[in-house]
């Protein structure tokens, strides 16, 4: 979807401000949100990123990084029915009234060991039935698509021409699949866009953009 998250090439975000000696987590709750987001064994309906991308543009821009993660995990639990809106509201009200109250604890060393040794559930290379259509060095074009759900084909490369740089094997396409369907598995390419192709006369000197494109993102010239 063409939401605010797809911000490659935009103006209007000011300067980059590195922080000296930055801690991994600035607040204790951020680390706990990170762990809950990654290790709660319940998938987020539609996908974690899509849940974040569906936030309104203003909420997205006014929420910090781990607030977005908290939103995605919480909303995912609500939508998958594991948590009810009423009980969540009740808990929030209770901690608002009792901000120093401890969170209940549950200990299970064995489950923890298992969860941490499990291989990450992230996408891994699969087998596609598609023959790679494009040889290395071939000029192709990124398709001009505007799907209403999650895609990994960002706006700033759509419709622009690029060169196939490498074959990366077969991978599940990360876009939100049509309802009820699994993720398609397609050849993945590394492609190269010349900066002038992306930014015209406003491009900086001697630079290029590399990005990974599934086969269905590309069309012959």
């Amino acid at each position, binding site marked *: 979807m063409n939401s605010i998250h797809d911000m490659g090439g935009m103006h209007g975000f000011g300067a980059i401000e590195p922080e000296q000696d930055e801690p991994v987590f600035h607040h204790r709750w951020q680390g706990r949100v990170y762990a*809950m987001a990654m290790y709660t064994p319940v998938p987020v309906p539609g996908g974690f990123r899509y849940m974040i991308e569906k936030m309104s543009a203003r909420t997205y821009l006014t929420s910090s990084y781990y607030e977005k993660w908290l939103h995605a995990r919480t909303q995912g639990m609500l939508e998958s029915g594991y948590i009810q809106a009423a009980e969540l509201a009740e808990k929030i009200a209770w901690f608002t009234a009792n901000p120093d109250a401890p969170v209940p604890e549950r200990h299970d060393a064995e489950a923890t060991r298992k969860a941490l040794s499990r291989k990450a559930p992230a996408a891994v290379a699969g087998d596609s039935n598609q023959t790679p259509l494009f040889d290395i060095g071939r000029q192709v074009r990124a398709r001009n698509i505007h799907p209403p759900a999650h895609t990994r084909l960002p706006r700033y490369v759509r419709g622009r021409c690029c060169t196939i740089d490498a074959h990366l094997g077969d991978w599940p396409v990360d876009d939100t699949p049509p309802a009820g369907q699994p993720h398609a598995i397609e050849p993945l390419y590394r492609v190269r866009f010349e900066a002038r192709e992306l930014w015209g006369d406003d491009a900086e000197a001697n630079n290029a953009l590399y990005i990974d494109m599934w086969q269905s993102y590309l069309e012959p010239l």
Partner: protein
Amino acid sequence: MSDTHHHTHSSADAEIRAKALESLLIEKGLISTDLIDEVVRQYEEDIGPLNGARVVARAWTDPDYREWLLRDGTQAIADMGYHGREGSKIVVLENTASVHNLVVCTLCSCYPWPVLGLPPNWYKSYAYRARAVREPRKVLSEFGLILSEDIEVRVWDSNSEVRYLVLPEQPAGTETLSSEQLIALVSRDSMIGVAHANGPV
């Protein structure tokens, strides 16, 4: 002024909402306190840019490892014991005298966790995500890295499940340093591509 650091939802609100969620997940038996504690501990103590620095220092001193790392980053990195989430395929990008690589994720903040840990705020900032692909030289110059126009800048937008790690050039005059001394020269920023490795002290 950055859009990232000032936000209207207060951190206190988020803390309360996070506590509410944790309470419910614990009460429902969906996660354990140990697991949350241990994940936080791992990222605070074990999984960070020191991992990447060890990989880089080994590549600087071992030509065979360097060749393996550039050919199959995932396996060569796994050989050092680093793998896991956001590391199912890691590609290593070699900086040279004529090519400089810079990694960004415009759509979110993808980052090679097993070798660099969790990303710093500036990498997650809207300014970096928006600007790195359009004006990489200007961005690099703000980090103090002014590159001659002879050097090709390659920007890598991590949009698929592949994650990218930059192999910085070994600074001149460091050929005789020990492995531990070399590791100390490899900053996080040099493995994202917004800095060179540090010179000998």
